[in-house]
């Protein structure tokens, strides 16, 4: 039996040759496929035939000047914006364009917003509890009770993001940096397969930035991460592979050094 067939009839995964509903098929490598995606707002092309492949378990950094299409790209992946043309797949089989935001989130693609979006009226603990991966139907939510395993998990995440002492404080009183951490914590609670992280270090102190870098690095492998950030020093500290977006398309991809020495990138950034 050749290795391909072996892979198909793997003992652990007997049905892997079939399309399994709700299962993310990453046997070809990439977990996220965007092909020829175009979005225009009133004639302005926010995305212009963007093609992008994110491998399972990789940490990808995206940079690009303002208006390059970074946030629109995340909007398309998470179902907020429907593209005019193109296709977006999660694994080999899940067509994200046929799904709405809650369905995509439940499938395992979660997002941290550019502006930290936590629920100010709820406590840190309650914010994390809302994000917890569980049945999210209305009746189930009404009768939901945390089991000990789940509260331990919330405790662990609070530990990871350094907010244990503030567990019962309202999220509204947190500093900008702490809100960023809380939102990262909310992503972790969702146990996503892909994390889209938009500007994670805005408003953070130097130490906080270092801890964020460590945290993101520790997550790769188990999860795939797409990090959008303007801070080049931060990108350098975490990036293996960097994608540069420009005018709604991919300008270039490569290591940080390759990208920074690419004359096109220099031109785009310096406006030469």
């Amino acid at each position: 039996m050749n290795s391909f067939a072996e892979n198909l009839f793997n003992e652990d995964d007997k049905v892997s040759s079939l399309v399994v509903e709700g299962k993310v098929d990453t046997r070809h490598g990439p977990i996220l496929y965007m092909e020829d995606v175009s979005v225009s707002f009133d004639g302005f092309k926010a995305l212009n035939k963007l093609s992008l492949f994110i491998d399972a378990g990789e940490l990808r950094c995206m940079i690009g000047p303002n208006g390059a299409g970074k946030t629109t790209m995340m909007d398309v992946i998470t179902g907020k914006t429907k593209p005019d043309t193109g296709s977006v797949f999660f694994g080999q089989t899940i067509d994200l364009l046929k799904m709405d935001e809650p369905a995509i989130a439940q499938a395992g693609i979660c997002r941290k917003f550019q502006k930290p979006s936590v629920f100010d009226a709820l406590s840190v603990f309650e914010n994390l509890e809302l994000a917890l991966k569980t049945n999210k139907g209305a009746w189930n939510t009404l009768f939901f009770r945390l089991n000990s395993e789940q509260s331990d998990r919330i405790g662990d995440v609070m530990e990871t993001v350094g907010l244990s002492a503030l567990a019962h404080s309202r999220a509204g009183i947190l500093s900008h940096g702490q809100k960023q951490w809380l939102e990262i914590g909310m992503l972790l609670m969702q146990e996503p397969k892909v994390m889209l992280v938009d500007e994670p270090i805005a408003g953070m102190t130097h130490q906080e930035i270092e801890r964020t870098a460590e945290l993101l690095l520790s997550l790769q492998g188990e999860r795939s991460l797409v990090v959008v950030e303007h801070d080049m020093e931060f990108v350098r500290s975490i990036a293996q592979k960097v994608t540069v977006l420009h005018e709604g398309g991919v300008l270039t991809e490569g290591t940080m050094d390759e990208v920074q020495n690419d004359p096109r990138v220099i031109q785009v950034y310096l406006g030469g």
Partner: protein
Amino acid sequence: MKLLTLATQDKTCTTVLMLLAAVTVVIPLCNVLTAVDSPLHFSAYTVSLVGKYLTFALLGMSLDLVWGYCGILALGHGAFFALGGYAMGMYLMRQIGTRGVYGDPLLPDFMIFLNWKELPWYWFGFDNFGFALLMVVLAPGALAFVFGWLAFRSRVTGVYLSIITQALTYALLLAFFRNEMGFGGNNGLTDFKDILGFNIQSENVRSMLLFLSGSALIISFLLCRWIAGTKLGRVVTAVRDQESRVRFLGYRVEMFKLWIFVFAAMLAGVAGALYVPQVGIINPSEFTPLNSLEIVVWVAMGGRGTLYGAIIGAVVVNYSKTVLTGLMPDAWLFILGSLFVVITVLLPDGIVGLMRRNIRGKQV
């Protein structure tokens, strides 16, 4: 027990609850136990007035659940109250039997007057009290479900949703005005004789209705507090503050809105059903958009998002209305309008917010 501990975490809340319980028990008890000329005896007028306030309080609280917790400014909430009232009114109409002016055992007077020969199908079953009670919650619930399903799924929010809810109650107002609808046209349903075999005018029945209204309010209050304390309550609060973020956490926001909206509509229906036997009439004017706006003023006045604030607001505004419409009948609408402006500008958290500020001020 757990419900009680939940409710007693907040001092104002406990006070309101105690007062409610006292009113609910003491007034009916005094009236049943004492003679008419006793100083402890409340007049029939006072009893129905207090009973009416209690149903308004329940109505206000149900709107607070939708507006204060879920952030949906529904300007047509009175429609659900009126539907519940009509369901009860239909039961009371059928209890009249042969005692009507025309003495028909089956058809209410207004149908004879319209020369109708038989009872319309939707009047069937309303001679049964249990069926009528079911309709009291099902009719408003079904309307809220259909309306909410369409509106929330299409993601209609904010001022657009408010306008549609207003249009909904206005459409119902026009429909119920029509004689062909079979709900008594602009006269509505009235001239009720008895409820479950007891004379509806009698003092004891009025005391009983007050007791039931108070009990319904207390039970609903505890139920709403419980809901607000569950994870569903927190999701709903989150929807109020950042609707789209909740979607990205994997919650179907429209389902949560629908759940709260339907539940609140049912509570409003119960309030309407308790209101009608106490005032003795239900007519299409209950559907006027103005009524629904008044409910919003009660909640804003009392303080949004606290539940008991809505109770305080409903009682205070309606008491002022009773007093002021007696003193200067034409001025009431102007007073109501100015109240709304003043509260919005000066007291965004209503009476409850003012009390909290005072308590905090004293502690400092």
